């Protein structure tokens, strides 16, 4: 059996399969410093979303809801194409629609981007997470939330450069796209890719997906999209969900896709220098106090002090007077 599936279109075998993705394949685990190295390196997988082939049918959303058994509530039409209006704990992927007028051609372009977790090689959510094992990264590149370890603090929301995780108000746990890790574990591609009627979403090894993207980009360039390109942002170490964009020089026109995503320096310093300097400062205070307490003489009230106080209360004339500059 091959370690990672090569496609999302094949049908599953009829006989039961053991999971081929488990705790032994974890390469990063949130709030865990010394993780044993994995016994094997899985072939890296990736989902490639070709924005130019997307027709906005939302079959990917339906497939996602069905496979993950989520239950988004019935929405309300407020005159936008997005349904639901945003990612939620019950909607891990969302078609975002932008009506964009190309200034060069003066023609309207309807940009449709399937939003969802990008499965960063350097995941900001995992860096921010305080709960051991609530977020893991497998050697095939999938970043997954282990809900039983999640404490619902929302730090992943602050860590994510793409605004993806959503905290459930019902169970106070964080949810996002799993890249169908449970399907990948048994040799299947993600449900969205399987359902996509135009093959705008394809799935395979990261290398294969880059090659496939190169062919698509060459095709788009031949059709006049001179800036067509692959979105695999290096600021987060590359991603395991990539886009083919016809205007790769300006990702932000696709419903605010970040031009150069990276983990915020605020998050980096919170999880880096603040933590180390903070622990050192608190430790210095605590240890310093203890050393002073052991070695320095305690500040004790003397019998003389008590006698002076008694004199002051009984007969102020006998007590030592205030120093001259303080005398009233």
């Amino acid at each position, binding site marked *: 059996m091959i370690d990672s599936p090569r496609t999302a279109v094949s049908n599953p075998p009829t006989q039961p399969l053991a999971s081929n993705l488990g705790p032994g394949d974890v390469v990063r685990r949130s*709030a*865990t*410093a010394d993780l044993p190295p994995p016994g094997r390196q899985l072939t890296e997988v990736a989902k490639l979303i070709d924005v130019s082939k997307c027709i906005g049918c939302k079959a990917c959303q339906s497939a996602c809801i069905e496979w993950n058994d989520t239950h988004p509530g019935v929405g309300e039409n407020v005159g936008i194409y997005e349904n639901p209006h945003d990612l939620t704990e019950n909607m891990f992927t969302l078609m975002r629609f932008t009506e964009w007028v190309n200034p060069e051609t003066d023609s309207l372009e309807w940009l449709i981007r399937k939003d969802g977790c990008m499965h960063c090689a350097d995941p900001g959510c995992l860096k921010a997470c*305080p*709960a*051991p094992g609530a977020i893991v990264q497998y050697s095939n590149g999938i970043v997954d939330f282990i809900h039983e*370890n999640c*404490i*619902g*603090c*929302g*730090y992943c*929301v*602050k860590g994510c450069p793409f*605004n993806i995780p959503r*905290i459930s*108000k019902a169970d*106070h746990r964080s949810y996002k796209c799993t890249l169908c890790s449970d399907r990948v574990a048994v040799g299947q591609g993600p449900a969205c890719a399987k359902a996509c009627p135009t093959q705008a979403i394809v799935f395979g090894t990261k290398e294969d997906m880059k090659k496939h993207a190169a062919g698509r980009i060459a095709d788009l360039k031949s059709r006049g999209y001179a800036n067509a390109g692959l979105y695999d942002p290096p600021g987060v170490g590359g991603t395991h969900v990539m886009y083919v964009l016809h205007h790769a020089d300006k990702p932000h026109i696709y419903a605010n896709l970040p031009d150069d995503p990276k983990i*915020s320096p*605020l*998050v980096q*310093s*919170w999880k880096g220098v*603040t*933590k180390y*300097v*903070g*622990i050192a*400062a*608190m430790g210095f*205070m*605590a240890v310093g*106090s203890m050393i*002073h*307490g052991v070695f*320095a*003489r*305690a*500040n*004790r*009230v*003397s*019998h*003389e*002090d*008590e*006698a*002076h*106080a*008694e004199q*002051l*209360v*009984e007969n*102020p004339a006998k007590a030592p007077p*205030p*120093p001259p500059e*303080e005398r*009233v």
Partner: protein
Amino acid sequence: MAEPNKPRYAQPGDKVLPGKPVTVNRYGPGARLNHWITASSLILLALSGLALFTPALFFLTGLFGGGQNTRALHPWFGVVLFISFFVFFFQLWKANLPERVDWVWLRKLRDVVGGHEENLPELGKYNAGQKIVFWAMAGLILVLIGSGVVIWEQYFSAYFTIPQMRVAVLVHSIAAVLIICVFIMHVYAAIWTRGTLRAMTRGTVTGGWAWRHHRKWLRELAGQRKAGPAE
């Protein structure tokens, strides 16, 4: 100088009781109860906050019944601290206003740490160190409650943007480190300066303690006793 009938250092309830040794009432039962509410909530906040600050201390969530409970309880401890501290604040702020003598005291910090009270100026109810702790606590608690609301996921996540939350979480962690340092200083000073803790348990100190550390306050209370109405 101060009007004879208006106390400059003494606060309502402060009183000298003659005897051997002299006893001085420093904190009433309400202030002491409130102090321990503030202290307990600050300790609970430090424990639950440190658990989420560094993975090495995540085990502290066990004290609160797991990570989910720690996450849910921490902000409520903060609300308790905020309310109880600011009740305290409005009782004590006047006695903690800086005076010229505070600078003299601070310049002689070597004598303070060495316990050489004889080289230090006579002081009112609070010394400069106590005043610094008071104002640092007040400022840091304001910063912590403000930034804490921004990152209180359960109730306030809809009202703030993610960039605002990132600033808040960094500010909150730095302020928390500082307040824990101030807390350690406060506790240690109270232990090292023998005879202080009873001010927050029994509410009284001995006359000798007041003579040694807060002599102007003691002189004023002794003077009030002489000039005060007949009992």
